[in-house]
């Protein structure tokens, strides 16, 4: 094909068997000249194209990826391309956060009879990629380490819940305890500056319940383990969204869970607290006041004001009170309306694509693939059947290289499309502090943009957007080829 005289690039095409593959055939039979860069992989339906195929190709060195299927409302399997359209559009808005130019990925609709259209699609796409040149690689990027600026103004006052109705809560739990398998909450951990989950079975256990800024864990993560047993759970506002999402996906049953809630006044960023505390042998005292906590470690006092040491997610939190609960005690602070970009995402927004690639390169270098992020995620319910360590299918190598690690993070993020409630447990659990929450936040932003400001885990009756479709999408256009 004379249009492209430069050296061939590596382009991967996923073509639906029924339409686009036929369209490419038609173009060939009609002797319509085509560039030879595209390596075609025939798939049964564009709905079969997992967005991860695209990411894997791009991470492994493809310079461009093209997905093409039947025109919407013309799918061989009735609705495959409707699902594909939503997923691929989310993917398109996700790739830039990794540092990959989303112009390197495109999707199109070509029917079997449209040989000429196929010729046009493949030629324009190839031309575009040639204009961009070979794709930069993660392995070639110079590691960049940057820390998000956490100095933020909260949408509501943050505090230490000094006036919370903890005793009433304990009584309410004790009253219900006889009919429950257990109630999940928090207790003091190995010292006064750490909490750990508590599984209350007896009234004595209930007395150990703690409520305050150290209750960082999301107890919803345990609920699917108790499916079929009537279980209680104490939640903060953000945790309740995870419970709702689990209900939405039928991973737990409403009649099986009893939800207890107090208004949350914010939780501490334990990583930053630990950093300030430094190496200490023992905690002498932990004193609370309205605005913060004073921890005395080895005789030295450290002050942690909630406004300065809260978790990033707490500043923009608009749901201090559980969105769904059976027992609600106390009145939450009013939330000032306003939007707030989470600090990790704001940091990435400010970077150029090449800087983002360098950033993830630097971050992923210290990932140990320990999967704390996955197992702390209440929505990661496959866990024992995760593709990341499965041998069948053998999706990922056990190699400890940055591309495999970033690919795993992408799997995790994309599997959470429209499901992630932003509880931030993935990032909090990471022992080496990789800001992976930013990937989920970008997905959540894309989902909100595409689906009328949809936020996961607010309505038990809602269907997560990536599990459904509309024949005529409001915010996704037909993508007529330009």
């Amino acid at each position, binding site marked *: 094909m004379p249009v492209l005289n430069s050296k061939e690039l590596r382009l991967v095409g996923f073509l639906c068997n029924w339409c686009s593959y036929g369209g490419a055939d038609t173009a060939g039979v009609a002797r319509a000249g085509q560039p030879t860069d595209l390596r075609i992989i025939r798939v049964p339906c564009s709905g079969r194209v997992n967005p991860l195929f695209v990411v894997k190709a791009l991470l492994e060195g493809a310079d461009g990826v093209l997905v093409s299927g039947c025109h919407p409302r013309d799918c061989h399997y009735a609705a495959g391309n409707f699902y594909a359209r939503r997923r691929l559009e989310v993917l398109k808005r996700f790739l830039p956060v990794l540092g990959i130019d989303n112009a390197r990925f495109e999707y199109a609709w070509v029917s079997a009879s449209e040989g000429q259209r196929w010729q046009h699609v493949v030629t324009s796409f190839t031309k575009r990629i040639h204009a961009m040149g070979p794709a930069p690689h993660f392995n070639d990027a110079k590691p960049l380490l940057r820390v998000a600026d956490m100095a933020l103004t909260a949408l509501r006052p943050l505090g230490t819940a000094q006036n919370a109705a903890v005793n009433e809560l304990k009584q309410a739990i004790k009253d219900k305890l006889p009919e429950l398998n257990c109630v999940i909450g928090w207790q003091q951990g190995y010292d006064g500056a750490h909490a750990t989950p508590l599984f209350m079975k007896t009234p004595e256990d209930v007395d150990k319940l703690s409520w305050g800024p150290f209750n960082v864990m999301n107890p919803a993560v345990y609920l699917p383990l108790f499916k079929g047993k009537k279980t209680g759970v104490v939640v903060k506002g953000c945790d309740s969204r995870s419970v709702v999402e689990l209900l939405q996906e039928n991973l737990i049953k409403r009649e099986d869970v009893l939800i207890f809630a107090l208004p949350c006044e914010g939780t501490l960023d334990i990583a930053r607290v630990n950093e300030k505390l430094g190496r200490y042998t023992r905690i002498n005292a932990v004193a609370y006041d309205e605005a913060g906590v004073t921890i005395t470690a080895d005789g030295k006092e450290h002050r942690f004001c909630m406004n300065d040491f809260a978790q990033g997610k707490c500043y923009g939190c608009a749901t201090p009170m559980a969105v769904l609960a059976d027992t609600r005690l106390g009145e939450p602070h009013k939330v000032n309306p306003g939007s707030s970009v989470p600090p990790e995402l704001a940091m990435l927004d400010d970077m150029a694509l090449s800087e983002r690639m360098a950033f993830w390169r630097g971050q992923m270098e210290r990932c140990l693939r320990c999967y704390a992020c996955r197992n702390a995620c209440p929505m990661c319910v496959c866990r024992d059947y995760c593709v990341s360590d499965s041998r069948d299918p053998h999706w990922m190598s056990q190699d*400890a290289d940055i591309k495999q690690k970033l690919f795993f993070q992408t799997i995790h993020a994309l599997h959470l499309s429209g499901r992630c409630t932003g509880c931030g447990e993935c990032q909090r659990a990471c022992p*080496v502090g990789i800001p992976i929450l930013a990937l989920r936040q970008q997905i959540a932003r894309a989902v909100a943009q595409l689906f009328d400001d949809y936020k996961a885990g607010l309505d038990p009756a809602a269907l997560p957007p990536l599990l459904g479709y509309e024949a005529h999408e409001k915010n996704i256009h037909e993508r007529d080829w330009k």
Partner: protein
Amino acid sequence: MSTLRILTSDGLPAFLSFLSQKHHRVLVPVVKSANKRSVIFEPWRAGMPVVLEKATVPPKEAVLPQCETLLTYKKSKNQEDLGDITVSLDDTPEALSTVIFACRPCDARGFRVLDRPFLNGLFADPYYKARRESLTVFTITCSSGCNTCFCHWVGGGPSSPEGSDVLMTKIEEALMLQAISPAGETLLKDCDLPDGKDVFPRAEAVRKAAWASLAPAPDLKQVPQKIAALFGNDDFWQRQTSACLACGACTYFCPACYCFNITDEGDGFGVHGGRRLRSWDNCMSSLFTHEASGHNPRMRKMPRMRNRISHKFSTYPENWGTFSCSGCGRCISNCPVSLDIRAIVLTALNNAG
């Protein structure tokens, strides 16, 4: 008396450069700033800022990498008879002579835990052996305990020399270096650092003060039998493990955990052939005991966690006479839900059953 040397902080780059001339790589702790600051070991290059802090990730990688190629294989077909396939293998261990600079006594003891099964078992592991034999360990003694560590419970201590070639103790702005092994002796004799005899008493005082800062240790002699006796007590294990998320953070950050998985990458045909990889595995993972038949004897996290505790505090001591835990406390500090292995061991110890 072993060789003693004194190293001032401004002499550190020169000393590291001396070490890197003698050895292929020198691993030093460096800070990675992120939303959770972490300290990890990286090969030293001139100009690199070194921090003498306890690392977030232990330097276990130096002898047991997170992922290594055990062998590469290549298959080729006989063009005359396509059913006739020749396989060529390369399984030469790759070992770079390495110095670990400024790990902690618990990390160094971790190497000893690994040595027993890998070097002294029925079969010596050639890959491990090659790396272990070309490893020199410079350990910095701790000046105090910390909230999560418990090295003195399990036989170590803030200045335990076990597993180290050279022990270093910080005295104000200088380090006192003390040779422990013949390899350490040779290195210290060869370097041009001034003699450290004069400061030795001060270093000893620092070490004593560190010991004094530790909380009293319980007597764990009965622990192996106690834990073995609890094996069938499901209630006990259920209570101890209910908060566990079954991730692998505790094992991957443990200097004494050494379980691995072996996987093949590629069918061996083609230009690049295939690779057999050995990568870290952990008993918290469901695939850990997944049998070829499809059966998994440890389907739930309770038996998996029981395995972890039992291996460290009961079966390993039964086989090798000492705990496979060096008390570094990283499993506690890195646990997403702050599970405390010390509490589990103590509960087992005090359990009447």
